[in-house]
């Protein structure tokens, strides 16, 4: 009896210890974000106060208004949204089409072409952007939405992910549909795509995150100029040197972060799935 209580107490202590560690870690990780939110609501003169305020006693919401309007966050957000939407939609479509061919159709050079698609994953943007900049310029796409989005409309990762999903679909389903008069395109839209929804969601979330957070390409493909700055490049412009500018740029950072936070809250599972695809068999 006594031993039991002792072990129970031991367990409770362990649990408490776990919570203590987890909570401490959470605080350390969230601390920069918390400070950012607090500081984004301060007056510039409060920023240099000692000790620094840990709660915004008189929240300066107009900092957000300033970031949104005079700080041009509204246009940056719109640019990012359009570019991201185009990339996500484009990647989903091109990946579905190609993955379907690899999973369901027979054709010469299938293996080779699949390897070609995967090989693109080995060629990072850091290697291709030199020429892509020339290509985009000669297409008169410099500083345009086309220039921002078109180079990313296809992805080997997406093709790989969706092909895996399509291969899970029993062959029988395709044959049954074929006997019922469904061609490949109809089978794709009516059966294959609906059945691959979890993978599509994973790919969509992954593409969204990747596109929204791009930095190097939007920088070089627009020359860092308005009006086509994405949020990420816009933040750089917003990050002024004067202290008076700091709360506004922090507000801008919060604004840029919010869509992704929502994304994480809703699609955590899909995001994890896509980020670990291939990591754990």
């Amino acid at each position: 009896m006594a031993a039991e209580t002792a072990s129970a107490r031991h367990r409770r202590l362990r649990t408490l210890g776990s919570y203590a560690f987890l909570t401490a870690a959470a605080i350390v990780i969230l601390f920069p974000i918390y400070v950012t939110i607090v500081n984004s609501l301060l007056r510039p003169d409060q920023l240099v106060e000692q000790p620094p305020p840990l709660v915004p006693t008189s929240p300066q919401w107009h900092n957000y208004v300033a970031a949104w309007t005079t700080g041009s966050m509204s246009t940056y957000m719109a640019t990012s949204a359009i570019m991201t939407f185009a990339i996500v939609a484009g990647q989903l479509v091109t990946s579905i089409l190609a993955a379907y061919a690899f999973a369901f159709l027979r054709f010469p050079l299938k293996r080779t072409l699949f390897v070609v698609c995967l090989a693109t994953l080995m060629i990072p943007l850091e290697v291709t952007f030199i020429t892509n900049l020339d290509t985009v310029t000669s297409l008169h796409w410099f500083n345009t939405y086309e220039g921002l989005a078109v180079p990313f409309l296809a992805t080997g990762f997406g093709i790989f992910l969706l092909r895996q999903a399509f291969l899970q679909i029993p062959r029988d389903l395709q044959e049954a549909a074929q006997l019922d008069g469904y061609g490949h395109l109809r089978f794709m839209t009516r059966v294959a795509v609906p059945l691959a929804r979890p993978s599509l969601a994973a790919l969509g979330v992954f593409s969204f995150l990747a596109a929204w957070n791009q930095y190097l390409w939007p920088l070089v493909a627009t020359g860092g100029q308005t009006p086509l700055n994405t949020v990420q490049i816009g933040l750089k412009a917003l990050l002024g040197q004067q202290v008076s500018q700091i709360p506004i740029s922090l507000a801008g950072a919060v604004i840029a972060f919010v869509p992704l936070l929502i994304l994480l809250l809703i699609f955590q599972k899909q995001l994890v799935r896509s980020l670990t695809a291939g990591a754990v068999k």
Partner: protein
Amino acid sequence: MTDIGRAGMDAEGGLEAAALVVETHEAEVEAREAGGDTDKTTGDGAGGALARRRRKEAALAYVLLLPALVLFGVFSFYPFFRNFKLMLYETPPVPGLPARYVGLHQIVPTITSTEFTQSLVTTVIFVVLVVPISLILGLALAVAAHRKLKGIGIYRMIFSSTVVSSVAVASVVFGTLLNPVVGLLPWLGINPTPPALESTTWALPSVALITIWQFLGLSFIIMSAGLQSVPDELLEAARIDGAGAWTRFWRMTVPLLSPTIFFGFVVSTIYAFQAFGAIDILIGNSNAVRLHTNVLIYNIVNTLQVSNNPGAAAIMATVLFLIMLGLTVLQMRLLERRVNYGR
């Protein structure tokens, strides 16, 4: 630089390489394809109609592949191969002069130039700062969060959260935290001169700190996924055998997780090699410490846009490519060994 987004979108060699290996070992795929192939070899005495159907199917396949292949061709393979051509041309530093053919003569001077070697050294230091710390922290968090506790979902969400932060957001956030006049540092009496981001000693570690914070989410996610794939019974069995937490961790968890850890190592190394954004935002070109944070990509971008020499940029980009290729091949080798000898 190194926002996870780009890493994922453009290279993420680690993820994909692993995927590739897994793929080649996939029996089901093989079987299905083999079925198709044998079928193809069947002599079809019936002739015309069947052959026509086959042709139609192949034609449809190529149509479906067309968009992706065209995009890959134009924006991946063409630039990749054109790099080799660019390497042969040098653009003189005087504006207005055309690039001239120099053959292979530009290569050796470029990769032996102090600027490039320093940049390579800087990058390696940066990688060494970022990779081990973010992996160890990610593993620690994953192990701590691998318990069935009430509310653990919230902790997991928090630990994963930095995965969605972009490099620009992280830079703005940490730029302020490290600001010498704002907030905590002056109050804590930490008042280095010059300030961290302007110090030749501290600028690079500061950028590394930002990168670690940003990579922590992904590191946690990868390690968690690895832990979840370890059968609970194994750890429970060890516990029943009386192994303490510490022994269990080193004797069971770490070995079982070694493929995951290695995967995380490759992903984070590639990620760190691509670092660019934070340096561009926080340090920039004008700053005095620029030479001490001149990581590879920053150097490439500068060579292209400031020095205006695509040839040299292409040479450096190719070096970067080779480094990443080496890492990916290493990853594949080790995974293969696991597949062959493991289990």
